[in-house]
Each structure stands twice: as C-alpha cells, then as structure tokens.
C-alpha cells in the first residue's frame, strides 16, 4: 500500500463579502424569505442586463495580492451554458480565458511539519446559482433564487497536495486569508466557503498522473479529510483489484462516509463557453491595484510571525487573533497602549471579552468597548485595584449603566475595599472560632490552611482564594 501516492487539487468556492450581488443591486444577506432577494436581473427576466459590482472586483484583487498572484490587466467574463432550473438564465456568468487572478501560491505545513509551497493556478469571479429544494412530501421541486447572482471567487489549486491532511491544511490557510482580510465571512454552514476536490492516485515512481475523480461540494474541513481519504482508498483498492478509475464526478455522503458516482465524463455538459457580450472587459490599471494594496492590512502569515517574535504569544492565542481581524486589530491597539505583558493581556482578553463573544455569538463591535477602556480595566487588575473577576462583571454591565470607565473602576474598587474589610473580619472570626486547627497548623500541619480558606469562602464566594490564603498565613504566622 505504501508505494501509492495520492495527487489532490482543490477548487474552493468563496462567497465574497459584498452587500449586493455581483451583477445586480439585490441584497446578498443569508436567510431571507425565498425569492425575496431576487431582482429582475437575478431572475433573468427578458431584456435585463448584468452590471458588475466593483466591490467584488476589489475583493478578488485583494485575494490575488494575498497569494502573490498576478492581477490581470484585462479580464473578461464568459457565459457557461447549461440548463438547470435554479440557474435562471440557463447560463452562468463566469470566467474562462483571462481570469482576474492568475498564478500565486501559499505555504502550508505538510504531514512531516515541514513548510511546503502549494501553487495556485487561478482565481476567477462568477455568479452563484439559486437553490433547488426537492420535496418528497409535495412531490415537486421548489426553487429559491435568493442566492442566484451572489459573487463567488473560485480558487483553483495546482495538483500539489499529496494527502487529505495537506488538503485540509491548504483549505484552512485559504480560509484564514479570506476571513482575516474580510474577503469572505467564510461561513461554511451557510455555504460561503465550499470545496470540490480532484483526487487521483499513482505509484510513487510513476511520472504520469492517474485518472482523477472530482468530489463535489464538501462543506467542512472534517468532511474534506474524510471524503478524500475514502476516495484515495477506493481508487487504490479498485486498481489493485485489477479495475480502472474512470473520470467522473462523485458526491460525498456524509452519513455513510462514502463517495458515490454522480455523472461520468461522457455525460458531462459541453458548456459552450463564449465571452459574455453584455459585459465589457474589466480593465485594471496599476494605480487601482496599488490603492487596494496600500489599503490592505498585514497578511495572516506575516502577522503570525510578528505575534510569535515580537509578542511571544502562544499558538492558541495567535489562532484566535488570526481568525478574526477585528479582534486582532483590537488587541494590536491594546498591546501598543498597555505595558502589561502581551501573553498575560491576551489571557485577560480570552477569559473575559472573548468568552462572552463566543458564548453569545457576538462580534467585536457588539462588545462596545474601546482598547483604551480595556487597558484601564486590566491595569486596574494588575494594580490590584479590582479583582480579575471584576473584568467579566464590567464587560457584562448593561450599556445604560456605563459611565466613564474610571468611575466604573472606582465603583468596583470601593466594593472591593469593602469586601477586603469584610474578608479581614471573616478571617479573624474563623481563627478565633477554631483554636484547635490553629494549634494543628502551628505544629506544622500546613494542609489545614485549606480548611481556613474554605470557611472564609463560605461567606465570601466571589473572593480570590489565593489572596485569602496569603492573608491567613500572615496572621497565623504572627500569632
């Protein structure tokens, strides 16, 4: 078995983050009432014409720059002709010759944890189709054209990937780039980031590639790995049993973890591509590209190195930051303004703001907190003005009650001071009430400390056990 090698190339469909569709003004928001977001253009009504959305072009160029690709000075749209009920015009506006991005590459860690370069053939713009919803109950098919005309960037890799794991690594890298740069929301459940995989196998020393199959529409990292692994094993077994792989499209069945034949090459459509006469060529000049380049943030790869070298963050912390550029911008600002060690600062962030964001599915901007405010809060914690637990409480405070952050901190500090007084008296009481245990401690049974702390905490639940313990030791040692 080990002398087999698998060869994999991925086509990733990335839904671009634009407010309106690629050729019409209707909204791209997910989850609307069926067909509410389909304009006459999206419906392909007779006489309607496409008008290109410039934001889609910008996003595609940003992606091209992020992968070191070549931005085409002149790019054209073509019609891909095939009949399907959820394709309103019965052709899809896509690109064939002169795609917007040609070439490019990214680096991934391969199975041996060595950096490996994966080349990208091209990235082209196209419109998405609608959705067909087959209903057994009603014995008919419903069509929802809300998705029709949503801008997609199709990213086609070279067949440089050699394992399912590498494929997933590559996909994650692309995902990280497009979400960090806000090219796409990358939401895989909603289909904003989908993948087709071309898979073939060959013997290690074979020069020629084997016949490939195409696995359609795999919508999670987990399933990409499973589907490819299944397909590799299926092909190897087939060949070893004396069979032959046929070029075909296969569908992955998530429930059974198998791939099933969908259509063979002979049944494949002749798409009769030709340049779309309704859309003039896109001419892109250097100045436009430069403007976009200048407006782009640091790329995730560069950012990762910077977080490692300059800020000594842990991998886990870095992943959180690279997953969301709003968070990374926020933390960058906090790191600039605060003297607190970055790793520690990140921990404060994760245990408070990030926790709340995840729990309540909120965005950074929903948190209504500025980097300055966060700096003040954590330095108050560092200076022991307030407790660590107070951060969460401050973050949780309803918006209406928020005054200036100084006032809030003062309030918590005062409460904490009151708490301290209360704790001090609690400690005195516990020590006075338990002379036998005090005696034991003096004899060297230091374990008994836990008992004292526990007794105090009974009446001061939110307090920090460490601080209480310190205080008790201080008093007992002086008795």
């Amino acid at each position, binding site marked *: 078995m080990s002398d087999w090698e698998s060869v994999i190339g991925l086509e990733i469909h990335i839904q671009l983050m634009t407010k309106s569709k690629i050729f019409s003004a209707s909204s791209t928001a997910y989850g609307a009432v069926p067909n509410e977001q389909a304009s006459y253009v999206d419906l392909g009504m007779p006489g309607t014409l496409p008008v290109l959305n410039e934001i889609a072009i910008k996003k595609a160029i940003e992606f091209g720059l992020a992968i070191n690709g070549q931005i085409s000075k002149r790019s054209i749209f073509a019609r891909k002709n095939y009949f399907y*009920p959820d394709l309103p015009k019965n052709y899809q506006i896509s690109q064939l010759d002169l795609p917007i991005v040609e070439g490019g590459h990214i680096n991934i860690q391969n199975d041996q944890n060595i950096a490996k370069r994966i080349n990208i053939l091209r990235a082209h713009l196209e419109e998405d189709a609608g959705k067909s919803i087959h209903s057994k109950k009603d014995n008919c098919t419903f069509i929802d054209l809300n998705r029709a005309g949503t801008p997609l960037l199709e990213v086609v890799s070279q067949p440089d990937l050699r394992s399912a794991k590498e494929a997933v690594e590559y996909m994650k890298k692309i995902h990280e780039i497009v979400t960090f740069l806000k090219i796409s929301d990358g939401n895989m459940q909603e289909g904003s980031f989908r993948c087709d995989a071309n898979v073939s196998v060959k013997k290690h020393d074979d020069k020629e590639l084997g016949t490939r199959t195409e696995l359609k529409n795999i919508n999670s990292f987990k399933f990409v790995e499973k589907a490819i692994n299944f397909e590799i094993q299926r092909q190897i077994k087939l060949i070893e049993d004396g069979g032959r792989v046929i070029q075909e499209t296969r569908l992955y069945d998530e429930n059974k973890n198998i791939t099933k034949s969908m259509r063979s090459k002979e049944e494949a459509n002749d798409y009769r591509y030709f340049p779309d*006469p309704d859309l003039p060529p896109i001419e892109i000049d250097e100045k436009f590209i430069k403007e976009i380049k200048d407006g782009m943030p640091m790329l995730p790869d560069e950012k990762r190195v910077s977080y490692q070298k300059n800020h000594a963050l842990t991998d886990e912390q870095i992943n959180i930051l690279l997953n969301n550029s709003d968070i990374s911008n926020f933390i960058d600002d906090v790191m600039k303004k605060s003297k607190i060690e970055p790793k520690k600062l990140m921990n404060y962030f994760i245990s408070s703001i990030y926790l709340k964001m995840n729990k309540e599915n909120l965005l950074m901007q929903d948190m209504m907190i500025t980097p300055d405010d966060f700096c003040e809060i954590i330095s108050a914690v560092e200076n022991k003005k307030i407790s660590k637990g107070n951060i969460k409480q401050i973050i949780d405070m309803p918006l209406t009650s928020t005054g200036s952050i100084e006032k809030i901190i003062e309030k918590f500090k005062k409460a904490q001071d009151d708490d301290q007084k209360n704790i001090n008296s609690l400690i005195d009481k516990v020590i006075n009430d338990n002379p036998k245990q005090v005696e034991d401690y003096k004899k060297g049974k230091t374990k008994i400390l836990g008992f004292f702390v526990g007794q105090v905490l009974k009446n001061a639940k939110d307090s920090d056990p460490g601080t209480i313990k310190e205080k008790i030791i201080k008093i007992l040692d002086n008795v």
Partner: protein
Amino acid sequence: MDIYKKSLRELAALLNSKEISSKELTKYFLERITKFDSKLNSFISINEDYANQQADKADKLIASGKNNFLTGIPIAHKDLFSTKDIFTTCGSKMLEHYLPPYDATVVKKLNDAGMISIGKTNMDEFAMGSSNESSYFGDVKNPWNLEKVPGGSSGGSASAVAARLCPVASGSDTGGSIRQPAAFCGLTGLKPTYGSVSRYGMIAYASSLDQGGPIGKSAEDCAVIFDEIKGFDKNDSTSNYQIDFKKTRMDLSKKDVNKITIGIPKEYFSQGIDEDISKIIFQAIEEFKNFGFNIKEITLPDHGYSIPAYYIIASAEASSNLSRYDGVKFGYRCKDPINLEDLYFRTRKEGFGTEVKKRIMIGTYALSSGFYDEYYMRALKIRRIIRDNFKKAFQEVDFIFSPTSPTTAFNLGEKTSNALEMYLSDIYTTPVNLAGLPAISIPVGFNNELPVGMQIIGDYFSESNILNIANYFQKETDWHNYIPEEFNHE
C-alpha cells in the same frame, strides 16, 4: 387637416397651440389603426386604455405649460421593448402572454418625454427574419403593395408608419432590422452606433449587435426621437459613458458641403444587386454631387464574408440569450410535463417557431467544443477585419453610401423556403452591425412602384452628421413625402 401627414414638429406645434388635444390626436391614430390595420397586421396589440390615460396626462401638462417637445404625440413600439404591465410578445408564442414587470429604458425615456404609447408592433419572432414572416402573429403586409413583405424584423413598425397609422415607431436593428424595412416601406430608419442607445429592457436577440432606434417619415423625425433615447444607461454596461451626447442640430449649410466627402464602395455595386436599384442609387449620388458634395470611389473588401460571420455570431449569442425560455419562470409552458427534460423539450419545441429553432441550433453548433475555433472564432476574426476596413475607409471619407438592400420588397412567401436568399437581403446592412457603426436608410426613388432605400453609413457616434446629411437631401427632394395610395386619406 390631414394630420396623418404631419411631421413630429408640426404635431408638436398643433398640440402647443391647442388646435388639437393629445386625447384627440391619440383617438385619431387609434381610429386609423382600426380602419386600416386589418389589411396590414402591423400591430400585435393596441393599448387603448393606457394610451388614453397617457393622453389625459399629456393634455394636463400642455395646459399647465409643463410639456416637452414630444408631449402628447403617439408612438408605436416594436414588441420587443418591455412595457410594464403591457403584453410584450417578441413576435413569439413563447411570450404570447408575457407581461413585463418593468419598462425598457427606451420606452421609459419616451414615456417620460410625454409620448403616448399606442400599441406594440408586429415583428419577426425574436427579431429573427428579414421579411416579418416568422412572426407567430402572422405576416405583415407592405402598404405599398399588399402582396409584398414590409421587410424585417421591424416590419410592423415600418408598415404602420408607412401607412401613417402612427407618426413614428421604435425598432431594433441587429443585422438591418430597422434599415431594410424602412427601405422597403419608403421610410427613414436610423440604426445608431452600438452603445448609443440603451439595450436595457429590449429583449435580446444578439447582444453584441442589437441596437434600438427610430423608424420615421423623415431624418428630422428620427433625430427628435434619437435625441430623446440616446445616452448612457447605468443598467446597460455596453452603453457608452464617455461620449457627450449633444442635441442633434440640423445645421449643415450649403457652404459646408464641399468640405464633405462621400465614399462609394465599389464592391457594393459589383454583383448581386438589382440593376435598376443600382441605377436609382447612382441617381441619388449624382444629386449629392450636384449639391456640391465630393464623391470618391473607395474599397471595402471582404464585405461578402459579413453574412456568414453575422449568422454565426448572432446565432451563437441567440442560442445563449434564448436559453432562459424554458417554461420554468415565465412565458409558455407545455402542458403536463412528465419530468424536467420533457418540460424543457416540449416547451421549447412548442413555444419557438422554425426560424428561431434553426438559429438556436446553428448557434449551439458553432459554440460546441471542437467547432468553436472553426466557426465562432473565425467569425470574430472576420468581424475585426470588417471593422478595420471601415476604419480605414473613414480616414478618407466622411460618409459611405450604399444601397440598403439589393432588391425592393419581395413577394410574401417568395424567399421563405430559400434561407440563403433571404439572408442575402441583409448583405449591405450586416457589416455595419458587425462594425458597430451608425447608419440610416432614406428613400431615394421608386422601382416598379416600390420604394428604394439608400444607406448612409457614418463613423462611430456620428449620428448627428448622418441625420444632417440625410436631412439636407430631404430638404431638397421629396421622396420621403410619398404615401401609399391606399392609405393616403383620412
């Protein structure tokens, strides 16, 4: 008062001076349609209620002095211009009951100018034809001789204006569909530069060639309509946003004519043309010479390839443009389809006519893998050569004159069984569409009591010059004033 003879300018004056109301004018033409159109079949639908509403509105505007030049004047639209909530059939069974939810830009602009949309004119199915015999709604007759075709595909528009059933009409021109019927019916028809007039809402036949324009009684009337419909439209990415479209001014004066050179392409007269027609065209050219224009023989080689190139390109685009008529969302749907494939096959089989199916098949074939380079790519190369030839010619001359069609209007049924002969009637007009140039057809004489049209081709976006020189000729001659006898009364 012989209102049917009046030019747009004269009608505007009558409305302005309140000698006639828009309501009366509308009624007048609706009555002419009722009286005469049974002989011609030039209309597919009449919008009586809608027209009356528009006329009432126009009269109010006129009364309050807030009217435009065209306010209150009726127009007929070719039935491929989408009209909101008014049937737009494109001459096809496929769209027999189709109600567009919006107005085409051309329609909207003319509505906004206050024109009265009195009806939708007959046409070849999906604008595919040169005789108006492919319409699902029946043949249209030529008012000059009811045995003859009016030309196509804007045959209904030409027939209606020639019989003076409406003062002016819109048309569309993909390979000659405005100019050839204008020539056959003794009218003036302007095919603007590709990109001058928005295609939004005009049901597509061949997107890279289609262009809307006016069919009228004179260059002056065409200019008024063209001025109203031209210009960039954000809904049509192929409409030109760089040109500053100015109002057409008929300011060509006697002292300027000797600065103007007219090119006569010798290839256009060498073969395939009716000798009598050739003679009439040369008489017209002679008149221009007498006016003081410079005449120069030029060469426009390869124009013979324009017909095959045109039919490949137009059919290829049509095969894709017409894919949307599948019975799923709008238009005709076959009865009780047993599955999706049956729905597609029968809807298209039953909904489209023969000519449309033929072109869809030609186009599908030309774009198929293995044939694409041989047909479609080669046609594109010819298109480039034709464009370059014109560019070269316009370095030497200001206008190019040619016949509009090699014959006058032919008999109904004469060429329906011979597609090639039918296609050749567009031999002088298709090169202009392939190049994207503007051209006008004006009447310059009669042969056997049928009108002969001459084509004036200009450089890109020179519509104003074309209209000027055509107008100059029409000021000096009266070929455009002839009206077919049968319709020349109230």
